């Protein structure tokens, strides 16, 4: 039944990934909690948190791909929305500490006490409620994206100009959040969380649940993205990506479409950030670092932009590589990472999934040629080709 319904909105590959994610969401916690540590199928808590972190990155990558891969808006500042979502969650977790902080102040977080703040700043109110924080997780990045996008898309800021000002946005936020006076804990950020929704944040079971929630949210994101991409809206977006002015001459208010996905994407990034914070245990301004946002772009490119699954593969693979290399070759791992990016762009212009796609297409072509004269190339909505953008002349 459910698969039936899924298939009407998601293609086979998407459905497979959703099923895989749901399976992971169930099996990984089970393996971690129920199997004895000696079992070969036991997944240690360390891995649970690690993969959970990768999956939040994957969610960010899916969000980024929605605007970049399908609508051609290259954001070099998506880390900002991720971090804002993270801060909203961090503020909730901070308030949950209550009187268990080092200064035992029932209301004020520790950093406010030692900076001698007398009362909670207004923007911290409400964050003691989970529902409010959860709302803010999507609302704050969403509103910022809406305001920013409304200004930028209406003035038709496009291409590298847009990319650079998204970078300016995240850089400005980085500097702002570094300031102690902002009331977000300065460079140390928010940390030392105790519990979430009443559960001890360090308990294995909580970690497993957070992991499951993350996997389910990624599955949801895959579904939402597929839904958008396969709808007429998705076709409009691809149209905007490939020939923006044509779209306008067809009567589409391109700015509104852009604004719509841009805001949705920012909200998804915010959710990713909110899931990230309890799993890594800290949120601080370095998440606003422009380099982080660029890295997210790289995940998408490595996996294959303009596909829904590519970003997930890219995010998990690059971060797994980072985890592995930083431990295996701590002194020279940057060479490996740098080389990876160069090789991917040179030899896999459509990312890993693109490689798979073109390999499959070639194979299908060969089979078809054997069979008969060869049918016309059929469109595959899931791996839409990206025409080379025309260089500004």
């Amino acid at each position, binding site marked *: 039944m459910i698969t039936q319904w899924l298939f009407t909105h998601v293609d086979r590959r998407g459905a497979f990934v959703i099923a895989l994610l749901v399976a992971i969401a169930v099996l990984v916690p089970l393996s971690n909690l129920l199997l004895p540590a000696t079992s070969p199928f036991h997944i240690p808590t360390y891995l649970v948190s690690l993969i959970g972190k990768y999956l939040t990155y994957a969610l960010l990558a899916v969000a980024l791909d929605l605007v970049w891969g399908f609508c051609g808006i290259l954001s070099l500042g998506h880390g900002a929305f991720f971090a804002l979502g993270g801060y909203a969650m961090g503020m909730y977790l901070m308030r949950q500490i209550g009187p268990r902080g080092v200064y035992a102040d029932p209301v004020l977080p520790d950093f406010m006490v030692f900076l001698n703040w007398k009362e909670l700043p207004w923007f911290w109110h409400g964050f003691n409620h989970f529902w409010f924080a959860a709302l803010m997780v999507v609302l704050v990045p969403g509103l910022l994206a809406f305001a920013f996008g409304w200004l930028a898309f209406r*003035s038709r800021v496009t291409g590298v100009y847009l990319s650079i000002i998204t970078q300016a946005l995240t850089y400005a936020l980085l500097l702002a959040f570094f300031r102690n006076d902002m009331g977000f804990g300065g460079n140390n950020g928010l940390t030392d969380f105790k519990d979430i929704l009443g559960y001890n944040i360090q308990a294995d079971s909580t970690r497993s649940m957070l992991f499951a929630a993350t996997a389910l949210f990624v599955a949801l994101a895959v579904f939402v993205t597929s839904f958008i991409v396969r709808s007429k809206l998705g076709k409009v977006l691809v149209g905007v990506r490939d020939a923006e002015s044509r779209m306008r001459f067809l009567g589409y208010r391109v700015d509104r479409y852009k604004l719509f996905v841009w805001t949705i994407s920012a909200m998804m990034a915010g959710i990713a950030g909110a899931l990230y914070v309890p799993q890594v245990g800290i949120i601080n301004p370095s998440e606003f670092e422009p380099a982080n946002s660029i890295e997210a772009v790289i995940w998408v490119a490595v996996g294959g932009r303009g596909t829904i699954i590519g970003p997930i593969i890219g995010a998990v693979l690059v971060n797994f590589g980072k985890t592995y290399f930083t431990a295996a070759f701590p002194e020279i791992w940057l060479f490996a990472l*740098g*080389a990876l990016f*160069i090789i991917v762009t040179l030899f896999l212009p459509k990312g890993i999934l693109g490689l798979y796609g073109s390999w499959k297409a070639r194979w299908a072509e060969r089979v078809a040629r054997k069979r008969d004269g060869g049918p016309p190339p059929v469109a595959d909505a899931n791996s839409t080709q990206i025409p080379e953008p025309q260089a*500004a002349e």
Partner: protein
Amino acid sequence: MQFTRLLFVLALMLSAVTCVGGANAQNVDDATLRPLVQALAGDNFDETTKAISDLVKTDDPRVSSILNALSAGDLYVAKADKTVFLGKRDGSAYAATDPLTAAKLDPVPRDAAEKIKVNNRLRRDIAAAIGGLTLMSDKPAERRSAAEAILKTRDPESIPLLDQAIAAESDKDIKALMQLARAAAVLSSTAPDDAKIAAIAEVSSGNSRDALGLLTPLQGVDGPVGDAARAAIGSINSKLALWNGIQNIVYGLSLGSVLLLAAIGLAITFGVMGVINMAHGEMVMIGAYTTFVVQQIIRASAPGLFDYSLLIALPAAFLVSGAIGVVIERGIIRFLYGRPLETLLATWGISLVLQQAIRSWFGASNVQVGNPSWMAGSFDLGLLTLTWSRLWIIVFALSVFAVLQLVLKKTMLGLRMRAVTQNRRMASSMGIRTPWVDALTFGLGSGIAGIAGVALSQIDNVSPNLGQGYIIDSFMVVVFGGVGNLWGTLLGAMSLGIANKFLEPFAGAVLGKILVLVLIILFIQKRPRGLFALKGRAIEA
């Protein structure tokens, strides 16, 4: 204060004696002086202080050179026999001379001797003491520093001595300085009101910022002296306000020229060629490291050429960064034309590799790039202090800009570059070897980033992270100015620099920077293609 006063009394006596009795005779014999010199190596600063005052009391002419050596940290004490000697580092030993007789002594191994410690307070005291000793010196530089020393101490006791010196002074500038010092001394004395008011006039007529410092303590005084001081402070303050504006503009231009230098190479690789070159900062860094290597070689083989090290480093940095740029273009970027966003990923990878390469090669820490003497120090322009290094960087940035314009507008290479970037197919069908021009253009942009690195090595630290600090600012400048337009880059850099400096005083450096970023974001809404946008049909083809 007590001690310096004492010193001045002594100095006064001393100089009176030297004036009357003629100079340069040895006033005391070595046997008397030696224990006093030995005493400089006391156990603590207080003992050294006492030894200095004892030495000054002897009014022996050798004292000032001994004290100078002490202040410069050239006086050592042997650990074994506690003899004090003048030492000069020579490998693992000190070349030693006797402080009194200037006779050569046996070299002392480094771990057998200890430097006689001086701290800032001692150095100040010594300067003041020597100031008293040298106010009548026949070397103008010594008289000047003596007057400066008195200006700092403002000791009323020195007024008679100053009067004497002023009468004898022939150099106009030094005389003015002495008069200022005298006025300062009068203000801190118990002189009658009219003398003080005259001193206030004297003090406030000068251009020195010190005037405010001299007058501020009098602000609270009642009566005519206080009134005069308050009036003088008022007028100085209004003058300062004007100069503050000028300072903001000048400092803004200086910051702007740093931004221009950092961005101008990017204006070519990104602005002209359309390559989102994230490795641009690393080209700057490589230029800075080239400067370091050049200086290392010069230090090792021809120290006399050190002042010319930057001039030698300029072409070297251009060639090194340019060559790396050509290699990158030939090896990677040429496969990515027409895919500007992909170049972002590849060049990001390149930047990681280059950073790590430099880190593996030179180490992760800062390396030391020295300032040649003509880059060091500062000069006063009215109430504004501008350092030579900043001034040269302004000049340098503008020259780089001018030369680049010439290359692009007047040379065959420039013509071809413009042809290729405007219409590649047409250019190649006219017989221009476009791949070659591409490589050279990228090399030119990288090379210019390299020479920017030479300049930035003078004001910033040279580490593998150097480039990362400039990359975002550079992109902001190019985009703000308008991609593909060098004049836009110039104007963009300068206006961002000046905006930053006007925001900094009242918003603080951090908020100022944030505000500038927000302004850029808002500005781009108004002019989506930067300050100098290309208009017409071509842009959205």
